[in-house]
């Protein structure tokens, strides 16, 4: 059994990233879309940590940035939930297909 290398971790984070993107582009439920965005952000976190551990083991810059990303993800989720609540109040639905008001 070989040691897990950088490539393996990057593979995981890439897969996670694209699963998140696919979810965002495909799901109908706004909250599910939000969950997908969280997946994307988490994949970015994994990327940072991986690069930190494998390339610069004696530094902690990547870890520090991950903390920032977590904090921002939390704030952004709060804002997104607030938007979804307002949308629900005006449209009585959280289906993304009912939000197509700003079209030509």
């Amino acid at each position, binding site marked *: 059994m070989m040691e897990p290398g950088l490539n393996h971790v990057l593979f995981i984070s890439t897969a996670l990233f694209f699963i998140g*993107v696919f979810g*965002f*582009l*495909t799901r109908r439920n706004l909250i599910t879309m939000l969950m997908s965005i969280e997946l994307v952000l988490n994949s970015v976190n994994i990327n940072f940590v991986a690069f930190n551990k494998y390339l610069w083991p004696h530094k902690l810059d990547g870890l520090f940035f991950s903390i920032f990303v977590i904090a921002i993800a939390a704030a952004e989720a709060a804002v997104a939930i607030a938007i979804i609540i307002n949308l629900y109040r005006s449209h009585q639905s959280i289906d*993304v*297909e009912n*939000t*197509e*008001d*700003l*079209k*030509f």
Partner: protein
Amino acid sequence: MNEFLQIKLLGIFSLGMDLGWALLMIPLLPLIGFLLLGLFGRKYMKQSAGIFATLLLSVSAFLSLHTAYGYFFKYGKLEGVYQKIIPVQFTWLQFSPGVSIDLGILLDPISVMMLVVVTFISLMVHIYSLAYMKGEERFPTYYSFLGLFTFSMLGLVMSSNIFQLYIFWELVGVSSFLLIGYYYDRPSAVAACKKAFIITRFADLGFLIGILILSFYSGTLDFNTLIEKLTSIESTEFKSIASASFIGISALTWALVLVFIGGAGKSALFPLHVWLPDAMEGPTPVSALIHAATMVVAGVFLVARLFPIFSMSEAALNVVSIIGITSALFAAVIACTQTDIKRVLAYSTMSQIGFMMFSLGVSGQGGESGLGFTAAMFHLFTHALFKALLFLGAGSVIHFIHSNEMKDMGGLRKYLPITHITFLIACLAISGVPPFAGFFSKEEILLAAYHHNMTIYWIALATSGLTSFYMFRLYFSIFWNKEYIAHGEAHGEGGFLMMIPLILLSLGAAAAGFIPFGEYVSADGKLLESAFHLQFSIAPVVLGLAGIFTAMWMYKKQSNRSDTIAYSLNSFYKLAFHKFYIDEFYFFITKKVLFNLVGRPAAWFDKNVVNGLINAIGNCTIFLSEKVKGFQSGKVQQYAIYFLAGVIGLVVLFIYIWK
């Protein structure tokens, strides 16, 4: 050889400055009237418009008389020859060192005479209209148009440059259009003003081409230089214009005939006369001013102005005389059958202008042979007086009975005494009965024709007989014939303001004949002795009296003698009554030929090809935009896809292409 010495009085400051300003005021005062009344008349000057315009014009008339007195009696003559004086001139548009459109004033015998005629008749019409047009809704507009017309006509007669004359020519056409179409809610008036403008505009095309030819060969647009260069046989310009030819006719003749066509359109000569009877739709004082005394003589004035050049081309003079005599006879025949009194007077005007034209056509340049020129100008002068009088008198009749037709009239001599007497004086004048004005001028015309062309003389003699017949037919039908049944008119004859012009004009018509015109106006500026030939005048006077008595026999008492004669002349009478179907001929050409062959294809092309092109461009834009607008679908996920695609593109760009 004609040699006019030119005195540019700009050099002689005191006389020049004074004279220049006085002369400029003459046309500028009516122009000021036009502008002020046009801009402010409707709101502020509803009552005072007439008085204002009349006052301006009376100053103008006084200045004209002053100029005329000064020119003819004080400074105009040099060594017994009347000079062409240019007191004011400035360069406006310079095309090349020689050719420039200058604006200037030219004083010579005919222009000074025309100044007096135009301002005097215009003043009479202004005064008359104070009463005739009283109560009109658009009273100030009427006076502003009259001011525009007077300004244009005065500018026309004072022009020193042929292009300046063309500018004023067009302005006169526009004023005529505005005045004929004054009652714009009447479709007949609208049709008439359009017809007049289109026909004169069409003739002006010929005029313009003529101007261009003349200026091309002589290299100048200024009247004096033009005449100087084209009237001396040795000058290079004359040689080039006389030798250049097109279809066998020299360029000189072409230019002169084209210029004459322009004049013929404005002066309503055959075959461009069809607008004049219709122009009677305008108010009667307008007909008196424009279509009797002033605008329609613009063509005669033009030929007289260019007369030295005309006399270099025999063919052009022949064209002038033939068209002149044809119009004279043609109009006289039609006038015998018309029933609308203004139409009769319109055809009478056309006939008299024909007289003036052929008189110019048979004239030579100087001495005894130049009688035609002097006679034409003399007839223009006297004709203006008695024709304006006839129209104003007709206006008085129309004002009284509110109708133009002869059948509604009859026996009006008791109700309109002053109109009756002045109308009678005018009719006697036009019939050539001595001692009224028309006798002297007509006698001189006939004398000129007698000495040059016997055919024209005989036709002219016959026409003057017809003239007195139809004029007195008009007179007797209005004032005698039957008894007038009053319908309880609220007013009697028109007021004092309508009668004053009639009386003044009748004094002119009676006395003007005694002016020794040859002393003042002649083709070469020198004195023209016109001896009075007693035996010669017997024939026209006898014919005139014969016409009067025939008309009296037919029309003084109500009878069916006129109907019997009309019946016996059957088809010829019908032909004359329908004005020889010339109008129908023009309608045929315009509607069936021009509209169908030229108008319809042009309209098709415009609607389908030109519009189609623009519509196609529009449709392409719509098509493209339909395709593009899908980008803004309002779907967040689609926007995210575009975002992602952009990011991936940038990544590829940065990693693989731009290293």
